[in-house]
């Protein structure tokens, strides 16, 4: 058994793409070895596939690879025995068959088949060697790895082969970045493959600066990791991550009481930006702490990939941590720290300059200038958007108020009016990721009140499904109004997301609406949200340049546009329940089939159903509902009509009828009170009655009256007890 190593040497791969590609390479190699029967699955040693990556390489090590596929034997059937042998002597037909099967004529055997006696042969297929298979198959696998953005580096048409080989005469390979070397080893010998025109060898490359240009010899596949460690490259991603975390801890300890701000995504990024990570601590002048923390952290994290440091009280401290891709002595560290500090100082200075400039024009004086900021060219400016948001927010506000939720309505209106004005601020132009947050900070600094400031500040949260929702009712309403306005207006001009394309991030917007409704106390349903926006969309953009204004109208509640938006939000609710909350797909389907308008109610029903589904009675009841649905469908196909259930015959049917009558009101009342667990427990008590009914009663009785009564009866079960969830959607087990 052997170890197989593949390393693809690349120019620096974008950090954000490495993890996915590394996993995909591991999967592809593993699948290939399995498919080609090259993995020693049945031995005690077993097979193991490990992947590695750095910015300059993707690698995979497969242990327990067979040198060769096992030989196989295939039973072939040829001409009939009579045709193959005349008087015991082989005919040309027998000879041809033997040749095709690769056996001697004498090895042909008589086989009995239902059609008579035939000539048979056991054809041997010699297993191919791992070397052969990997050389032939692996390059395709590597080049099929998905990258968000590919490039050419060789001449796109320069591959024209003179030999007329059709496969190679087309374009050269595209890949995320140029392939510069390839290592492919089965134990100690090179596998003769080539990727994107680069022939594999046994020489890798080390850290650009610490090791330099000389090759790194990989003596054997299993020695890969250690050989590269010797060349200042840690190929194991988890190990690099650990090194970075430890170094961050250790470096922070040099400042008493300090802690580095945990930042998982940033740890990932710097892990994929380094081959030999070390950490230095840098400082900045105390005076910059007067700037808002959000600005300082954004500059450090997003622009410089530095970790922020906080003091024992959790307040930002005037330090930062930079993860380096090198190792230097104290003098080198001083030089690098000095350089990083200068860059940060310049950026902080800029930020302070912009902050000061921005204060000369308060937010309230910026509303008019939104006329010059385009929201969407077919719809209008952010001035238009603000007017629309106001209308939607007012609608939402009156609904919420009518249902008894109290909040600061004046602050809400002010916040909506000013929400987008920070788009004209210099600081936002510099740090676009801080839009909203800057607006909120300015509102606070300009004395517009905490409710206004907070609502503006939080308007873009949640930015993802993991993010928190706005804390204030004003912020929640602003966030919903802004997003539903965008969704409805975009759908109106035909910009609904399709497949994987969602250029306006409308799914994210809808996810946020669902999340806010789910995790706040707002008394709003998805339908309410759409209603609030509906009349707004009848106000078509007044902005010149908008075309086909009528397309933006949502018009009547029953219009196809509205149905489209409803369906879209329902899909997002489905996503939320299943992927964010982790409910089983059948629970989600069952719950949404019984109503998808009230988000928090759907969650409560899903929770109860998830708890109830384990009980045996409940499984049986679910099966019965599936049966009921099937029978009702059959009956409908055959044109059977429902009769009156008073006409049912026999004790089982009558028992079921009484059970419905006695339980229906109880269940309905509990549903009303949202006591779903109790309601479901009551429904589960139907089990013996339903089981007995299906045991003894043929629903589709030949007698039309009985059949009609039976159908009415089971339809009654379905309609009375499917109001919490459609149990027929449940999957057993």
């Amino acid at each position, binding site marked *: 058994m052997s170890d197989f190593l593949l390393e693809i040497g690349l*120019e*620096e791969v974008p*950090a*954000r793409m490495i993890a996915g590609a590394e996993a995909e390479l591991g999967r592809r190699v593993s699948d290939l070895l399995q498919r080609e029967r090259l993995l020693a699955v049945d031995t005690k040693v077993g097979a193991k596939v490990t992947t590695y990556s750095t*910015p300059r390489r993707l690698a995979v090590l497969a242990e327990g690879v067979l040198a060769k596929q096992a030989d196989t034997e295939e039973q072939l059937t040829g001409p009939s025995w009579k045709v193959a042998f005349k008087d015991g002597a082989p005919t040309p037909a027998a000879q041809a068959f033997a040749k095709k099967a690769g056996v001697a004529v004498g090895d042909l055997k008589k086989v009995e088949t239902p059609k008579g006696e035939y000539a048979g042969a056991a054809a041997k297929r010699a297993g191919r060697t791992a070397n052969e298979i990997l050389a032939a198959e692996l390059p395709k696998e590597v080049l099929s790895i998905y990258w968000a*953005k590919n*490039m*050419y*580096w*060789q*001449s*796109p*048409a*320069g591959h024209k082969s003179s030999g007329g080989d059709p496969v190679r005469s087309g374009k050269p390979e595209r890949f995320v*970045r*140029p392939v*510069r070397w390839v290592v492919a080893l089965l134990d100690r010998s090179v596998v003769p493959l080539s990727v994107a025109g680069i022939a594999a060898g046994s020489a890798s490359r080390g850290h*650009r*600066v610490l090791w330099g*240009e000389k090759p790194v010899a990989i003596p054997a596949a299993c020695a890969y990791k250690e050989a590269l460690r010797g060349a200042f490259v840690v190929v194991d991603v988890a190990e690099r991550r650990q090194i970075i975390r430890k170094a961050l801890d250790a470096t922070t300890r040099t400042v008493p009481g300090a802690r580095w701000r945990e930042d998982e995504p940033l740890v990932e990024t710097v892990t994929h*930006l*380094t081959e030999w990570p070390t950490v230095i601590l840098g*400082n*900045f*002048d*105390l005076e910059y702490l007067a700037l808002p923390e959000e600005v300082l952290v954004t500059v450090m994290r997003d622009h*410089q990939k*530095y970790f922020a440091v906080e003091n024992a009280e959790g307040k930002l401290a*005037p*330090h930062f941590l*930079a993860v*380096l*891709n*090198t190792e*230097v002595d104290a*003098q*080198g560290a*001083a*030089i*690098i*720290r*000095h*350089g*990083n*500090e*200068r*860059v*940060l*100082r*310049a950026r902080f*200075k*800029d930020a302070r*300059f912009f902050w000061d400039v921005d204060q000369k024009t308060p937010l309230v004086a910026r509303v008019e200038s939104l006329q*010059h*900021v*385009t929201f969407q*060219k077919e719809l209008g*400016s952010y001035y238009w958007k603000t007017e629309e948001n106001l209308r939607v927010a007012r609608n939402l506000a009156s609904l919420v108020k009518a249902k008894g939720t109290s909040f600061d309505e004046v602050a809400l209106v002010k916040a909506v009016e000013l929400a987008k004005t920070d788009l004209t601020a210099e600081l936002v132009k510099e740090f676009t990721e801080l839009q909203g947050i800057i607006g909120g900070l300015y509102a606070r600094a300009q004395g517009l009140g905490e409710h206004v400031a907070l609502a503006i500040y939080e308007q873009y949260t949640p930015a993802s499904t993991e993010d928190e929702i706005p804390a204030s009712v004003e912020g929640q309403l602003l966030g919903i109004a802004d997003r539903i306005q965008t969704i409805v207006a975009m759908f109106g001009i035909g910009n609904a997301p399709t497949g994987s394309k969602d250029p306006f991030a409308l799914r994210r917007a809808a996810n946020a609406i669902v999340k806010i409704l789910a995790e706040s106390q707002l008394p709003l349903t998805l339908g309410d949200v759409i209603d609030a926006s509906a009349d707004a969309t009848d106000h078509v953009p007044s902005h*010149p*340049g908008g075309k086909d204004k009528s397309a933006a109208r949502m018009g009547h509640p029953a219009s196809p546009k509205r149905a489209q938006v409803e369906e879209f939000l329902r899909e997002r609710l489905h996503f939320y329940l299943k992927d964010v909350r982790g409910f089983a797909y059948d629970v989600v389907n069952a719950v949404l089939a019984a109503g998808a308008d009230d988000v928090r109610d759907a969650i409560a029903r899903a929770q109860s159903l998830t708890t109830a589904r384990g009980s045996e009675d409940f499984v049986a009841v679910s099966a019965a509902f599936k049966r009921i649905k099937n029978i009702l469908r059959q009956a409908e196909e055959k044109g059977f009509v429902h009769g009156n259930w008073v006409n049912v015959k026999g004790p089982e049917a009558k028992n079921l009828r009484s059970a419905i009558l006695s339980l229906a009101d109880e269940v309905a009342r509990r549903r009303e009170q949202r006591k779903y667990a109790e309601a479901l427990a009551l429904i589960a008590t139907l089990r013996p009655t339903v089981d007995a009914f299906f045991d003894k009663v043929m629903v589709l009785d030949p007698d039309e009256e009985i059949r009609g009564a039976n159908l009415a009866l089971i339809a009654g079960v379905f309609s009375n007890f499917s109001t919490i969830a459609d149990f027929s959607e449940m999957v057993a087990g």
Partner: protein
Amino acid sequence: MPQAQPAPRVNPTSLTFQDLLFRLQAFWAERGCVIQQPYDVEVGAGTMCPETFLRVLGPKPHRVGYAQPSRRPADGRYGENPNRLFKHTQFQLVLKPPPANVQELYLESLEAMGIGLKHHDLKFEEDNWEWPAGGAWGVGWQVMLDGLEITQFTYFQQCGGLDLDPISAELTYGMERIAQFLQDVDSIYDIVWARDPQTGAAVTYGDVRLAEELQFSVYNFEMADVPRLWEHFNSYEAEAQVLLEKAGKLLNDEDAAQKEKRRFPLLPTYELALKCSNLFNILDARGAISVTERVGVIGRIRALAVGAAKAWAEQQTE
């Protein structure tokens, strides 16, 4: 508390701004590049010079380097911001096709400027480049040295809306940043541009360029005459359009002599497009281009630039 760091002497014998340019030019000249003088028409980036924009088209190998003053009127700060300029200096290098060791060559060029990589932290971070008005884009990196972006490294994929064959690698060195870094100064204006070898007296970046930064900021933001700028724009555009139309007819005419096609002035046509691009930038800095106009005007420039590029590519095949 931040401790007072002893300011490390990064480079005790700091090279002057002009030394850095000399070194880079010599480095690349020794590696077979033609060293060109800066292009004498206003451009927003070295990429827009015909030495890059047009020469990356077509099959002919090409290696060129030049220091290009690049104008971004809206970035002007009246000489008051220590890190921002209306006009900065890009050292622009094009390698067509790129050699397999292009990154290693680049690192050597840093060493040639006195950047001892052993004492610094270097990273290639993803950064793709795009110039929509030129129908041009590529993928590559920003090269970070101790947290400072010093170079844009791009593999061109398309230019003038045309797929490139062969691919070109473009390296754009930000010379002011590199000088600030090596000379360890906080303000661009303190960069030593030149030093008198006899007296040791320094001439600073501020001495050389501050007046230009101030006066062009005043012009671009306050005094540029908007109607007249539009007149210029329209007139350059009209001339370019006439030329492009003639070029189209001539290049499609199978009976036309090859010699006639070759002498058709497409380089001047492209220069007219560059004029329009610069005028657009001034109008933009002046706040004279509304949002609704913006896309349209960029489209007009694109028509000229892409039109010239396509005609040029065709002319080269004649």
